[in-house]
């Protein structure tokens, strides 16, 4: 199959960019190595919409962060993605920290971050009643927020598919050949031909670039470990809470999630170039998170932890460590979107537009489509409905009355929707990310086997063909005797 554009990597940037490409009158394919989209950094990060005071003024990070933050509400609204504009606080503990807040304020101001304030201890305590007594003040950035990063990725992909984009999963690219103005991408599911390639391969972006002879950068996988706490801890945190940055970096943040849990983390450990699959949590890492969080909210209890996980940021080894978003010097029809670490999620909507502009310059022949659908159908969320709405829904389709996941109150109807969606779920984790079935405090203890059953039924497979997250992550073996 020949395409105009092949996007490699279905993380949040790849999905957003594919969506932008699907506005144009061309054939675009999104190639993903795993069995689902959002399987890399986009599923395991802090889920923060940063206001934009961290990045160096003048950098691409700074520019796209502030733009992205201002676009996020629009995208999440259109695409029905959970997003909450709760604002962030950088907490200061001493005189030195307060000076740092001033610097951050100045930097934010230079970056164009609106409505920041440095607030007093009293106001901080009123906003965050459980904050450490040591806290003396904070930088308040009301434009910051929280978002569900994997749902954003899934929603963008679905929207792109509705607009004609193709998504090929289990299609990791292992070789690229360029001849006669055409890229020949050898993937796990066959050869894909494309005139242009956009490299959104996250921590693997350097390996993809190398396939066309571009060795101008390398990606260091920087591991971050997190704890996710039960919804019982929700009252403990109201805003995104950062430590005052020190030489040790930004440190651990504590934040509510859009679904009402509390998230804390990440650590920052640089791994070897060949450890890009290492998502192991470690005793050391988790202990750092546990200890560090005590300085912010001393009474927050990790006893109510429902899971821990690790993610890898794609840290680029160039001197300025800025986002690298540009046509490759090795081939002008190949655009690198690399080094997209924090604030990459926030910046993603702006990155997509930025890439669209680059693409327009190198490929001016493509026109906008006459019709572009900006939204996706709103997923049914039964537990957000009133009693009357639920009654009406169940009367229409009984499956919305059958609860499968007890902890989160997810129905069979919602799970079937997630499987049947454009680019729908094919494995247990895919159902979890789309519906939250298995995301609650029992972590799929009860519903896991039922989800396997529903997946098998809807996909027309045997139960023992259903995986946790594709490839070798099988759940069941042979039949019993």
């Amino acid at each position, binding site marked *: 199959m020949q395409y105009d554009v092949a996007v490699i990597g279905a993380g949040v940037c790849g999905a957003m960019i594919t969506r932008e490409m699907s506005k144009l009158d061309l054939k675009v394919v999104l190639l993903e190595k795993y069995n689902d989209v959002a399987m890399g950094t986009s599923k395991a990060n802090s889920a923060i919409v940063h206001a934009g005071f961290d990045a160096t003024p003048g950098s691409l990070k700074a520019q796209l962060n502030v733009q992205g933050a201002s676009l996020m509400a629009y995208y999440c609204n259109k695409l029905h993605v959970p997003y909450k504009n709760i604002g962030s606080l950088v907490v200061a503990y001493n005189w030195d920290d307060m000076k740092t807040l001033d610097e951050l304020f100045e930097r934010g101001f230079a970056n164009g971050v609106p409505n920041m304030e440095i607030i007093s201890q009293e106001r901080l305590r009123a906003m965050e009643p459980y904050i450490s007594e040591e806290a003396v003040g904070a930088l308040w950035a009301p434009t910051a927020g929280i978002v569900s990063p994997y749902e954003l990725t899934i929603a963008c992909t679905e929207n792109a598919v509705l607009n004609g984009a193709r998504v090929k999963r289990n299609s990791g690219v292992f070789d690229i050949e360029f001849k006669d103005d055409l890229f020949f991408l050898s993937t796990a599911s066959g050869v894909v031909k494309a005139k242009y390639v956009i490299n959104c391969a996250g921590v693997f972006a350097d390996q993809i670039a190398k396939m066309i002879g571009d060795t101008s950068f390398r990606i260091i996988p920087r591991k971050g470990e997190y704890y996710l706490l039960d919804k019982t801890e929700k009252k403990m945190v109201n805003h995104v809470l950062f430590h005052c940055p020190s030489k040790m970096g930004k440190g651990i943040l504590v934040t509510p999630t859009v679904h009402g849990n509390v998230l804390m983390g990440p650590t920052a450990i640089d791994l070897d170039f060949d450890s890009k699959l290492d998502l*192991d949590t470690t005793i050391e890492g988790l202990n750092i998170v546990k200890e560090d969080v005590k300085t912010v909210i001393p009474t927050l209890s990790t006893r109510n932890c429902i899971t821990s996980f690790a993610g890898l940021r794609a840290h680029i080894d160039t001197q300025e460590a800025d986002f690298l978003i540009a046509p490759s010097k090795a081939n002008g029809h190949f655009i690198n979107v690399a080094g997209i670490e924090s604030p990459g999620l926030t910046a993603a909507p702006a990155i997509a537009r930025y890439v669209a502009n680059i693409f327009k310059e190198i490929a001016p022949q493509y026109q906008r489509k006459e019709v572009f659908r900006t939204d996706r159908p709103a997923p049914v969320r039964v537990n957000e409905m009133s009693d009357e709405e*639920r009654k009406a829904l169940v009367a229409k389709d009984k499956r919305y*009355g059958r609860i499968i996941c007890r902890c989160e109150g997810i129905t069979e109807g919602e799970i079937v929707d997630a499987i049947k969606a454009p680019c729908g779920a094919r494995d247990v984790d895919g159902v979890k990310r789309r519906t939250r079935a298995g995301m609650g405090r*029992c*972590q799929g203890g009860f519903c896991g*086997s039922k989800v396997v059953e529903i997946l098998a039924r809807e996909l027309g497979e045997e139960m023992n063909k259903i995986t946790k*997250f594709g490839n070798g992550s099988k759940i069941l*073996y042979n039949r019993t005797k």
Partner: protein
Amino acid sequence: MQKYDLVVIGGGPAGMAAALQAKEDGVKKILILERAATLGGILEQCIHAGFGLHYFGEELTGPEYAHRFIEQVEQTDIEVKVDTMVLEIRTGNIVIATNAVDGMLEIHATAIILAMGCRERPRGALDIPGSRASGIMTAGTAQKYVNIDGYMPGKKIVILGSGDIGLIMARRMTLEGAKVEMVCELMPFSGGLQRNIVQCLEDMGIPLKLSCTVIQTHGIERLEGVTIANVDENRRPIPGTEQYVECDTLLLSVGLIPENELTRMAGIIIDPVTNGAVVDENRQTSRPGIFACGNVLQVHDLVDYVTQESQIAGAGAAAYIKNKPKGRNRYVSVKGQSGVRYVVPQNINENTDKDVKLYFRVADVYRNARILVESDGKVLYNKKKPKLAPGEMEYVVVKADDIHALQKKELVVRLEVQK
């Protein structure tokens, strides 16, 4: 809105026994709400024998035990709605539930019995570092895959935690041809029943490693192995004792948590030790007309005791429906001390008309310890036991007359341990 005298939430052994007792005591309109497709609860997947020895005086399998009650329920006019999930208990004893037939249900109940059972502690709560590979699941999930769905969830198994479900699954997986490498238990003693350790591990030749835990899981897609280590008296891994064990499955049997989401939402007071409601001798909770029994109240080791406890709750609810008591009750509070982790019930009506069984669990393994029940220095009960273990629930009976005679409205259950 529909009206019932009694709504029982949960149709497992607890809910059925409670409903049947209430029926026997003359309650007219009773409704059982069950979230699964059938009555019976978790017993339906417990196909091993060992149920009913105390209650029926014979050894039954889980489904057999359940079916004795299902048949009784079917012979009464107790109504049952299966595949029905209760979402909320609103003020005024209004139960909100959903199912595929009725859509949304709004039911007013004079009395409610909570019998939702318990769930297993998941991996996340344990904080075992490592990968997110598949092949890590609770023993109960594996039990469902094997006994209900008919699939093997693994071939080479390590079991963490020696709770009863873990022990049962060690034997079950072995009989199905899997190799169970070992059962690791963090504590220096097993939390399971002695008979299960003998029948499921010793008879099957499966090693039980005490004071040992899993400190890391390995494998990117499917589990490939775990690192185990011995732990010191503070349950911390001892450096140098790490050992890699190849396996494709890690089953967790590390504790059960009463499923009290509805109870908490309803504003009912919870005992921080049992994680179940605080109740009186009739199993009435802090909210009048709402009762609790079975594993949602306290985790039991034997279903026979669940049945007995639920009959108490059923009778209590029936009396409540009949008498519609008004005004405040005066209670004797019951506490566990020195070696007694908790006691159920936590309160006794000071004018109770019957003797009260106090159920409790001990904190450690004790030999030749004395069980004492005291009030204000006066000993009401004193008996020596050759062995007490956390895995076995104990009980003592306190006479109604003794409760009436109490000066101080407090009872303490404690152990006297010989040095």
